[in-house]
């Protein structure tokens, strides 16, 4: 039986961008509002899972050529980098710092090194979730 998933694929192409934008918002709102790296990473992997459901593994690999195991390593490197970077300023391990900067478009913004640690959490969560789903979920 031939199946035609035109409605699912067209809806996915629209909804994935909304989910990714929501994940980005949750990630960057994590300091002042509920959210953070963990929920943002899970939502991002949810968007990729929706792509996997609507299309197949080969198409998604072609459009998102990401090595998820390398992604876990890069995330851990980010977390360790922010931890070890505090040694450069003669402060205890994992001491974070922040400051106010004037950015061209956003104006006065407070930048915090905890965001770099959160990026590590985000990359680790996305990498681990997608590795699990791609190795267990795919039927041969």
């Amino acid at each position, binding site marked *: 039986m031939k199946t035609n998933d035109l409605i699912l694929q067209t809806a996915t192409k629209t909804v994935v961008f909304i989910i990714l934008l929501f994940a980005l918002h949750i990630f960057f709102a994590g300091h002042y509002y509920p959210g953070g790296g963990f929920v943002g990473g899970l*939502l991002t992997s949810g968007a990729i899972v929706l792509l996997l459901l609507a299309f197949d593994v080969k198409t998604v690999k072609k459009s998102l050529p990401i090595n998820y195991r390398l992604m876990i390593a890069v995330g851990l490197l980010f977390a360790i980098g922010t931890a070890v970077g505090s040694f450069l300023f003669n402060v205890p391990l994992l001491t974070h710092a922040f400051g106010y900067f004037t950015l061209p478009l956003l104006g006065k913004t407070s930048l915090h090194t905890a965001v770099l640690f959160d990026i590590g959490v985000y990359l680790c969560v996305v990498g681990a979730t997608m590795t699990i789903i791609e190795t267990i979920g795919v039927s041969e």
Partner: protein
Amino acid sequence: MLDIIFKIALVGFSLSSLILLIRVIKGPSVPDRVVALDAMGINLAAITALVSMILNTSAYLDVILLFGILSFIGTIAFSKFLEKGEIIENERRN
């Protein structure tokens, strides 16, 4: 006054979820259960909205959108499993 209305609506959504739970438990076929679970997820989002209005906070607004997204993805995964027998295909053949 508004608080009483919110609580009446909360009781209504709870009764609706309870009736859907009966459909989940003794639904004759699997698609009945899937549709009932989808409707229960949407009811849960509505209950979260009402609770966030009763508690007078906007911290739960992200949860509502999250419930919608998760319910959508879960229902699609279940219906693809019912239609094709596999959820994630290696290569689409049609």
